[in-house]
């Protein structure tokens, strides 16, 4: 499945609906679909909020596929060149008063996905993430 979004905040709902539709039609388990929803929430919000100086001007492409027993999510955007995956891990040992949960999103994305990669090509940010289908019995 491939959908095109613009960089407005209301597009998150469009992306989530597309994910749900894809997960249902491809028989993706609830756990995997939820992990994917988390990824979309964290990464798309980042792109829409910070990737573009002007809102609503560019197209963000979201691709959902089943590849080698994995759900593959690919997000392609033409915003500022930025590798969202290359951020320092948050300090999880800080006390409550000092915690800034803003940095947690990427940490969650990495923890919930099995593979992730970033490349910048033809002036586009391309983030590809994979989550293995049919998790083990302990999950």
């Amino acid at each position, binding site marked *: 499945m491939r959908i095109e979004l613009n960089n407005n905040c209301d597009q998150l709902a469009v992306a989530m609906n597309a994910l749900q539709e894809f997960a249902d039609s491809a028989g993706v388990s609830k756990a995997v679909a939820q992990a994917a929803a988390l990824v979309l929430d964290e990464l798309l919000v980042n792109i829409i909020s910070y990737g573009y100086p002007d809102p609503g001007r560019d197209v963000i492409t979201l691709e959902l596929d089943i590849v080698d027993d994995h759900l593959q999510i690919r997000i392609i955007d033409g915003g500022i060149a930025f590798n969202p995956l290359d951020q320092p891990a948050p300090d999880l040992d800080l006390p409550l008063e000092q915690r800034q949960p803003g940095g947690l999103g990427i940490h969650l994305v990495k923890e*919930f996905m099995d593979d992730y990669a970033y490349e910048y090509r033809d002036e586009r940010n391309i983030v590809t993430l994979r989550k293995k289908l049919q998790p083990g019995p302990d999950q």
Partner: protein
Amino acid sequence: MELTKRVIDNTVVVDIAGKLDTQTAAAAMDELQLHLDAAEGNFLVNLAGLEFIASSGLRVILRAAKQMRAKGGTMKVCSARGVVKEVLEISGFDALLDLHDEEEPALKAF
């Protein structure tokens, strides 16, 4: 996202159900704020009905905990399930907040 308030003895219990993500976090914070402002001492957030949480939702819970602490109250969180529990643990919230698996022990722990 649905937020409801109960009072058990001297504890305000707020149930958050549905999804707590970027699309719902602002509304959740607004509603939660009303209960936080009214709460005097013990505040329990029950997540039994919560199906999904993203970092924007974590921020809501963190802000609530900070506010309660700042005014000398105590906030606990209970009954997180499935992916919500997983997200809380991966985020280190189990070390940060007083998390309980069930509501009753959480109430007794105040």
